[in-house]
Structures are given as structure tokens and as C-alpha cells.
């Protein structure tokens, strides 16, 4: 059974349609890249899959359960307990240390502080962040900050990690380090990853690609096109 499934999802912002009947199924443990030009609706699709946005039409299922009909509180709990997130910009709380930033989802989920910090610390050596636990976001490089954000996305051992242009603000080499770590960690944990990117080099880390065009999702296959 697919861990994430979307059927005929449509969503407009005012009079502007962003999605026009997009469908997608993601299997457990898969790493899927959603590609497409700017404004194609790829980020909107990710936000719908993750229960951040509610579509006007269509259905979203997570682990066999329909989630687009849930109330905000239930979707919020789902995002906190089952999903992890990595975005392009501005994810770390500047007043908190790196370690506290990583522990944040656990603290919000009711884990005791000492335990949350202990779990958070385990991620620092795994992501090459040894010794940076006490730094605030202003004292981290772009690549370090993004690895801290990745640790925060993974610390709650989510079933699905949603990553929206996770390397968009990084140079090539740093971006590749982040992708390497993300893929290794996801494989080790069995975490499913839904990755939005417009960069082919980033999409090449995924198991397969889906392209969003004009608000619809198309799987890409290298078989000869049916004409």
C-alpha cells in the first residue's frame, strides 16, 4: 500500500489555479523527486501532501487514512508526529542553539527536555555537526544550518520527510553534501522522502521523478513515448 496517495487534487489561490487534478502515489521508503518549472504547482502539491494546505477538490491519503478532511488540530498533530520538514530558507529559530532547534519538534510533541536534547545530540555526529551543538543560527554557515534543519526534520523519526528545495540556497558542493546525508539517513531509517526541486542534479538522488506541469503531475519514464 502506498504511504502517500493523492487523487485528482485541485487547489486555487483566489482565481488562480495552482493544481488542476494532480495525482501521485509514493511507496514506503521511496525517495521521490517532484520537478517542474517555477509556478507549475510543485510546492503547492507538496504542501497538500503534507497536510499544510487543504485542496479544494480531490483526496489525500497517508498510510491508508484520508487526511484532507481532518481538522487543523488533527493535521497539525499529524505533521508533528509523522512528518518531518526541510525547507529552503529561514528554518532555524535564531534565539535557540543548534541543539535546541533540533530538539524543538520533540519538545512540542511533549517529550521531556533532557530526553529531547539527548535524542537531538545523537544527530550531530551523524550529520558532521560535531561541536556545533551550542551555536546559534547566526554562527553557522549555510550548509551547517541546513544540516541542523535536516536533523530537526529527522529527529522525530518521521514516516515521511518533506523537503522543499532543500539545497536551493546552497552552493553545488554543499548542496550535494546535504543531499548525501539526507539520502543516507532516510535509507538508514526507512524514511520516505518527497523532495521538491527544480535542479536535475538534486533530483538524481531520488529513486524516481514526477514532473508537475500546469498543475498536473506526470510520472517520467524512459520508455519510448506512445505516439
Amino acid at each position, binding site marked *: 500500500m502506498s504511504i502517500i496517495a493523492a487523487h485528482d487534487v485541485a487547489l486555487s489561490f483566489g482565481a488562480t489555479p495552482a493544481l488542476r487534478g494532480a495525482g501521485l502515489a509514493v511507496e514506503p521508503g521511496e525517495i521521490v523527486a517532484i520537478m517542474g518549472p517555477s509556478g507549475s504547482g510543485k510546492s503547492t502539491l507538496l504542501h497538500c501532501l503534507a497536510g499544510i494546505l487543504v485542496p479544494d477538490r480531490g483526496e489525500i491519503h497517508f498510510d491508508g487514512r484520508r487526511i484532507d478532511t481532518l481538522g487543523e488540530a488533527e493535521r497539525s498533530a499529524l505533521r508533528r508526529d509523522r512528518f518531518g520538514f526541510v525547507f529552503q530558507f529561514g528554518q532555524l529559530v535564531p534565539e535557540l542553539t543548534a541543539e535546541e532547534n533540533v530538539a524543538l519538534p520533540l519538545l512540542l510533541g511533549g517529550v521531556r527536555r533532557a530526553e529531547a536534547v539527548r535524542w537531538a545530540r545523537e544527530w550531530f555526529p551523524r550529520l558532521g555537526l560535531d561541536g556545533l551543538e551550542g551555536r546559534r543560527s547566526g554562527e553557522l554557515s549555510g550548509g551547517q544550518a541546513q544540516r541542523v534543519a535536516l536533523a530537526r526534520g529527522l529527529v522525530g523519526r518521521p514516516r515521511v520527510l518533506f523537503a522543499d528545495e532543500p539545497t536551493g540556497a546552497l552552493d553545488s558542493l554543499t548542496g550535494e553534501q546535504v543531499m548525501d546525508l539526507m539520502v543516507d539517513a532516510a535509507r538508514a531509517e526507512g524514511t520516505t522522502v518527497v523532495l521538491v526541486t527544480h535542479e*536535475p542534479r538534486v533530483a538524481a*538522488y531520488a529513486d524516481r521523478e514526477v*514532473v508537475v506541469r500546469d498543475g498536473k503531475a*506526470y510520472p517520467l519514464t*524512459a520508455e*519510448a513515448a506512445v505516439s
Partner: protein
Amino acid sequence: MTVPMTLLGLLEREPSHGYDLKRDYDAYFGRGKPLSYGQVYNTLSRLARDGKVVMSEVGPGEGPDRKRYVITERGATEVDTWLAEPVEPEPHLQTTLFAKVTLALMLGRPAEAYLDTQRAAHLKRMRELTEIKRHGALVDALLADHGLFHLEADLRWIELTAARLDALAAEVRR
């Protein structure tokens, strides 16, 4: 491979004399490297031998220019298959890919679907190279990177072309 298939594709558009074929080929695909008449007629002879075109006599006089070439069903099937197949993903394939996209638009075929197929073939190769890069030695990684950057450049061209298909179709259709 590109020249025979391109001539066949042009013949699918309409039966033509060798002269017209050369003119259209040079205009759309030659890009400073025009075909010689010898190349055109040699190619047409081979296509005729293989049953992909037939000749029909029209007009008085002699010589190859009096012959009109008509694509056969076998020829049309071959064009179909060639257009739909992705090109082996490797750097510097622009010429073949360019010919395919332009011909597909001329013939009213699904150029966007062909580009998607090509995009998938490129991404598949990029995944293979990424695996090599992630698990190989640094020298392997450097070589893989070289391939990845070139494939990425092709993909950018594919994206841009996909975005311009309507305008391109208006330009090459008649």
C-alpha cells in the same frame, strides 16, 4: 542516422523531389552544413532499396530531379519509432534531439511527450552517475561530475525547448 531519418520525416510531410528535400533540410537542419546532392540521392537510393520510399515519375525530361519520392508505410513506421525513442543520454546530442523535436512539430506529433521521454532517460543516467559518485573513489566522482554537468546542460535545453514548443510549432508548420 540523423540524415536518413530526417529526410524520411520530411517526406512524410509531403512527397518531394530531391532538390526540395535538400532545400528544406538545409533550411531547417543544415545550420551551415548543407547536404551535397550526392548525399541526398545516395540516401534516397538506400531508402528506396530498403522499401522506405518509392519513386513516382512526374514531368518530362530525365535525371534524378524529375523523380518524386513518396514515403511508404514501412518508412512512416520507422519515423514513428525513431521519434518516440529517447536518444542515448550522452553529451553533445543536441543535433539529433533538435532534429527530432523540429520534425515532430512539423508532423504534428507529440513533441512534448518525446521531450519527457528524453528527460526521463537523462535523469536515469544522472541517477546512475550520482550512485557512482556517492560510492566511488574521488577520480570516479570527478568523471561522473563531468557527465552530470553536461547532462544537466542538455536538460536545461530540454526545459527551455518544452517551454517554447508552441512558438516553435508555429514557426515550422505550414
